[in-house]
């Protein structure tokens, strides 16, 4: 078995053992078997990364077996590892290993631990399948697989009504995205006659495809159609504006899950997919513009909502949504490397923030409302210090991970010299100020000031070492991954994995942008910090006052621009009403009422009339016979 295959198989074995035998072998053994699977997988990933990214093996590719074969249509399970995949392998197995270990402490009191660890490992398998795919259908396989794991883990505490509702919501919103993705895959097959990356990208690169294609209402640009359909899938998985509503609700899942799936890995799958399909996206300016605008709008929208949330996890969730927007508009201006760079650094500091928040929640006995916290810095100093590191990395404090990657994105957007690039830049800059504001708001409300609930605060306790150790590792990543990863945005580091057409040189031009572009993000950091300081340390009555004065705006933000209510009104209620109508009116009244039973009743009536003919009197029958004979004779004689 090859090394690359083992990377997937080991967590799978862990998931199966813990899932099937978990009840019998107990918590400890389930933890050992899943954790060792993922940790060995991490070590193997590192060795693969060293070979591909440090050494000079351009890409490794192997086919495992044929999956679906039907006439010309053939798809295999294959493993492709190039630098794009190698980066993802490190991120996925790295964060997954940390989250597995952390969960030993966090889920300590849960009665269902084997199931939890089994799901975590199952998720890891699906995510690895996704990033190592060598064709679009296998990508889709992993894509739906992580969706399943996400569904299972959000609904892990299935006794909670809200948890299972959130799980369904996540699955369904993603299905809407996958609807686009699936049709995108059909179109790719129709145009290129294959779903293999190699084949499709080669044909696309050589221009060997029809420029337009007939779709629903008329001729459309082939590549724009394909890319936009794929992007709908990416929007669902990566919670972009319009299809983002599931992500905040997904916080119903246990916090380690939020860190792994809803911050570091699964939600970045959409970004990965756009980067992976760069040979296609590069060929459609329209699609790239859409990606840029949607990304920028999401970055801005989610940041505004993050300003006012009170649930500690929701703040970080909206922050994730916003940061994913950054990654998308980076990809949209063809700075795919910068998107991947930010994806990697974000994985470290956002996982750190989530797990840190988990540590706070753990300390506060499952309290998530920041208004009931405060003054925790003294009680849980290690968590506090690590959260500060995560916050600084997220807000782009010079020298930490986010500083490098976020600046690269903003500068690229500016350097793209397109209208959409400019829009993205300014939305991104304003989102940066808000990011700093809500991040420090979170820190101040949670750790500073006076405890809102003295009793809970007094009983707060620092988390055990098994939870703090993974935090330390991630903090290490949040500090240094910017330095280490900097070569990624250098010229052509990703090799043939990312394709740029001539003229799409925003990233290369990013070094030459004016001084103010380079300074502006830091200015925004300062503004955000100062405002947060004034609001939550200095004049703590101010936020409530503002919320009273601008009540409408405050409610608008608090309710996340009323997306949920809008969808409920637009889709959920009508679907149920129509279903009810079709059932009661369509099936029961029209088809059965008039059709089947109506027919039966009519026949019944006729039968009743006919019955009267059978009177039982001999002379009636004799008369009928006579008439019959007469008729027969008339016709045949």
């Amino acid at each position, binding site marked *: 078995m090859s090394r690359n295959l083992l990377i997937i198989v080991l967590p799978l074995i862990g998931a199966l053992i813990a899932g099937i035998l978990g*009840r019998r072998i107990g918590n400890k053994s389930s933890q050992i078997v899943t954790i060792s699977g993922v940790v060995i997988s991490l070590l193997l990933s590192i060795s693969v990364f060293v070979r591909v990214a440090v050494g000079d093996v351009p890409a490794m590719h192997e086919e495992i*077996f*044929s*999956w*679906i*074969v*039907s*006439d*010309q*249509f053939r798809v295999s399970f294959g493993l492709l590892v190039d630098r794009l995949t190698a980066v993802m392998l490190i991120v996925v197995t790295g964060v997954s290993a940390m989250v597995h270990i952390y969960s030993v402490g966090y889920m300590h009191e849960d009665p269902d631990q084997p199931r939890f660890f089994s799901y975590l490992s199952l998720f890891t398998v699906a995510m690895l399948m996704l990033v190592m795919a060598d064709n679009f*259908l296998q990508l*889709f*396989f992993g894509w*739906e*697989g992580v969706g*399943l794991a996400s*569904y299972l883990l959000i*609904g892990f505490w*299935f*006794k909670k*009504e809200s948890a*299972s*509702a959130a*799980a*369904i919501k996540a*699955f*369904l919103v993603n*299905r*809407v995205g996958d*609807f686009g993705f*699936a*049709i995108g895959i*059909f*179109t790719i*097959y*129709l145009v290129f006659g294959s779903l293999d990356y190699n084949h499709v990208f080669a044909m696309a690169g050589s221009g060997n495809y029809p420029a337009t294609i*007939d*779709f*629903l209402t008329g001729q459309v640009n082939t590549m724009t159609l394909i890319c936009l359909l794929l992007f709908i899938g990416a929007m669902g998985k990566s919670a972009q504006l319009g299809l983002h509503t599931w992500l905040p609700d997904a916080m119903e899942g246990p916090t380690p899950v939020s860190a792994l799936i809803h911050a570091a890995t699964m939600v970045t799958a959409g970004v990965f997919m756009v980067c992976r399909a760069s040979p296609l996206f590069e060929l459609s300016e329209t699609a790239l513009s859409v990606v840029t605008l949607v990304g920028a709008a999401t970055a801005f929208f989610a940041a505004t909502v993050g300003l006012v949330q009170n649930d500690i996890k929701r703040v970080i969730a909206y922050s994730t949504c916003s940061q994913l927007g950054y990654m998308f508009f980076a990809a949209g201006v063809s700075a795919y490397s910068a998107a991947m760079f930010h994806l990697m650094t974000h994985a470290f500091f956002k996982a750190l923030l989530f797990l840190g928040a988990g540590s706070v929640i753990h300390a506060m006995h499952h309290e998530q409302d920041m208004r009931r916290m405060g003054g925790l810095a003294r009680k849980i100093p290690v968590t506090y210090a690590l959260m500060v590191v995560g916050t600084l990395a997220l807000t782009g404090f010079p020298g930490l991970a986010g500083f490098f990657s976020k600046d690269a994105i903003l500068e690229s957007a500016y350097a793209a010299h397109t209208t959409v690039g400019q829009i993205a830049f300014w939305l991104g800059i304003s989102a940066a100020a808000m990011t700093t504001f809500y991040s420090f708001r979170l820190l101040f409300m949670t750790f500073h000031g006076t405890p809102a609930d003295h009793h809970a605060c007094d009983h707060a306790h620092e988390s055990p070492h098994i939870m703090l150790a993974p935090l330390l590792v991630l903090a290490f990543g949040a500090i240094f991954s910017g330095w280490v990863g900097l070569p990624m945005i250098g010229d052509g580091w990703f090799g043939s994995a990312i394709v740029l057409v001539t003229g799409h040189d925003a990233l290369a031009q990013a070094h030459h942008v004016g001084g103010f572009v380079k300074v502006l993000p830091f200015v925004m950091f300062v503004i955000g910090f100062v405002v947060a300081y004034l609001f939550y340390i200095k004049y703590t009555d101010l936020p409530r006052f503002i919320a009273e004065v601008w009540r409408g705006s405050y409610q608008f933000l608090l309710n996340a621009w009323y997306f949920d209510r809008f969808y409920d009104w637009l889709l959920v209620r009508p*679907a*149920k009403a*129509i*279903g*009810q109508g*079709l*059932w009661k009116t*369509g*099936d029961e009244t029209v*088809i*059965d009422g008039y*059709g*089947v039973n109506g027919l*039966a009743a009519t026949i019944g009536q006729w039968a009743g009339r006919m019955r009267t003919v059978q009177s039982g009197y001999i002379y009636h029958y004799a008369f009928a016979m006579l008439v019959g004979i007469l008729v027969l004779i008339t016709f045949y004689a």
Partner: protein
Amino acid sequence: MLTLVTFLPLVAALVILLLGRRDEGGTARLVALATSLLTFLISLIIYAGFDPGKANFQFVQEVSWIPSFGINYRMGVDGISLPFVLLTALLTPICILASWQTIQKRVYEYMIAFLTLESFVIGVFCALDFVLFYVLWEAMLIPMFLIIGVWGGPRRVYAALKFFLYTLAGSVLMLIAILALAWQGGTFSIPELMALPLSFNFQVWVFLAFFVSFAVKVPMWPVHTWLPDAHVEAPTAGSVILAGILLKMGAYGFLRFSLPMLPDASHFFAPFIYGLSLVAIVYTALVALVQTDLKKLIAYSSVSHMGFVTIGLFTFNQQGIEGGILQMVNHGIVSGALFLLVGVVYDRLHTRDIVKFGGLALRMPVYATFFMIFTMASVGLPGTNGFVGEFLILLGAYQSSKWVAVVATTGVVLGAAYMLWMYKRVVFGVIRNPEVEHLSDLSPREVALFVPLLLLVFWIGFYPVPFMDLFHVSVQHLLVQTDVNKMAMMATAVLP
């Protein structure tokens, strides 16, 4: 060989009849189970001996039956019919095992009915003579009618009659179609009639007559309303066999007769079939969304899923048709399993009302796991069999009409909605009904019902190649047949 696999259950039914009523049906159960397992074994031997590289019928047997009318006893299978023979032979022992404890009255008659049913259904899939086919097709109604009407729920008589009359109405038209074809071709031999040149008008009429009969069986919208009633009233095993196998007979009819014998009419009516199928997919998915009866919900989901199948069959390309065939098998496995799952809780709680459930996962974790896996297979998650079938159908449909594929794909979203919502209300949440507190998890016998189906779900999901190899060549042959322009043949042929 085919005769053996077809009539072995019937012989066993006679044996049970001769043994008479004794020990409250224990012997009848054992004989039925042993026979159905043996039948399954024989079907596997047939599978082993089947050469998938050949397009023609294999294991052909031909005995003169009523020579004066050219009616023969003709049996044979190809890659299109063999999967259904296997499916029937697999599901019957599962059904008998599922009825082990639930059926306590008239066990003896029940087992006879089931074995007779198996015999006739396998016969339908093997028959190569129209008269034989028609006789078996009709005969099969009787045991099914009895299973619903005798062992069913409170409204069983209404449901059984509705089922019977619906199907019979279709059958009458089919008989006319068969007679017309035989009149035209001078034979009742199905393979010979496939090559018969026919005028367009003739094809259209015969197609419509067949269509009514098959559409009722599939069932297609709007002749589907018998299905929810029949399912709700039927005993668990009855629902399994109904959803798993009887629904396949309609689609099989399209594959076996309409497409190869009436290719021009099939092309002509394809948009019409698409339209009805799309309505079925969306309409019944929405109806399923608001059901409160668990079994009715799954019954409506069957109609929705069979809509995908009929679309696949009329795409006239390899992916679509192969997806259609595979999806029929998948639907047999998955909805069979879902009905069994409903039966498990019905046996314990004697209700199918979704509101009465909730929190089952707390008392029945193994059950919840099985339920989750089959739910995901029904939703078409990659890695399960449902995905492969649905994907191929939609891929095929996209090549013939983008509108059809796009609208049908919305069914995939709706399918996830009603299935997951149902799962949530039944399995998740807290226990509200005090009776749920005392539920016991699956017994080993019940686990044994699900394991073979579970293995097939994953096997077909991950490695469908061996299954699909069975019918590649036959489908290719079918495509050649549907490409033939029989009208043109008609013009050049010298008619007698």
